[in-house]
């Protein structure tokens, strides 16, 4: 009887551990990149120059960009901004990670920023009305 009870308890424990592991795997939050070091760092001008000739090895990489904020768009639960120049359409778009919106409460257009994020897309089309664009997601301040 004791032996059976022992096996039963072991089986229950194994099932419970497996259930917790599966739950954790399924509900794992998206990666927090704020504590990670960017693979590459660019000024806005350097990045725009680079993508004109070479967009390889950029997608899905964590990069840092510094430049002037040209536009901030805020709503109830999100902040996104553009880094660029008033003289060209090309820009870097940054979707701020919801976990770090508070850090950026005092940003304003026209001021410099050093930000990092995952490259979700690079669009090079100088003929398009949108200009060239590097889109970053999960952005946070690049603290050195």
């Amino acid at each position, binding site marked *: 009887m004791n032996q059976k009870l022992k096996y039963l308890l072991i089986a229950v424990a194994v099932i419970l551990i497996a259930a917790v592991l599966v739950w954790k795997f399924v509900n794992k939050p*998206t990666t927090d990149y704020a504590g990670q070091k960017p693979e590459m760092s660019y000024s806005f001008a350097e990045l725009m120059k680079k993508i004109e000739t070479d967009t390889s090895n950029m997608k899905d990489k964590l990069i840092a960009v510094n430049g002037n904020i040209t*536009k901030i768009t805020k709503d109830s639960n999100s902040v996104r901004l553009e880094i660029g120049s008033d003289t060209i*359409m090309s820009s870097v778009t940054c979707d701020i990670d919801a976990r770090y919106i508070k850090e950026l409460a005092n940003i304003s257009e026209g001021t410099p920023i050093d930000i990092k994020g995952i490259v979700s*897309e690079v669009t090079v089309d100088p003929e398009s*009305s949108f200009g060239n664009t590097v889109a970053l997601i999960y952005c946070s301040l690049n603290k050195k």
Partner: protein
Amino acid sequence: MKNFFLILLLIGALQSNAQMYLTKTGKITFTSKTPLETIEGVNKSVGSLLDIKNGRLEFIVQIKSFVFDRQLLQEHFNENYMESNKIPRATFKGSVTNLAAINFAKDGEYKADVAGTMNIHNVSKEVKNTGKIIVKGGMITLLCDFSVVLADYNISIPGAVKDKISKDVKVAVNCVLSQVK
């Protein structure tokens, strides 16, 4: 004489920009709701352009810019459903068809009828919809809600999760456009 033509060209270019409104940080949210699970993805890097002179309207949606609250959802969305490495963007190219009913010089809310070609997952379809245009303080906000039937765009859902993902997802568009300088 040469300078005169250059000035004319410059004035023409400035005038054509004056009627263009654009954003690269528009927002599109999609929601799949079933009794078992609600899934929401948000893309805040949507490109949108409106020419208020002729009603030309464009949206460019980079699929990889959709963000989810769970890592697994993000991976499945990109790898299994939208195949974002192969098909990186969705687009809409069309126009506002009731342009005369919208006064872009006066702040207000206007009903906007839109028609054009939507391309998702490399499948193009002619679509018509009604949304809202808000003109306020020199900015134009585009708002629109519609449904997308996944099968219409060859997006297949594996049998194992078919009860967790709706066959038609709700899409909400919210883009704030500013004038191109």
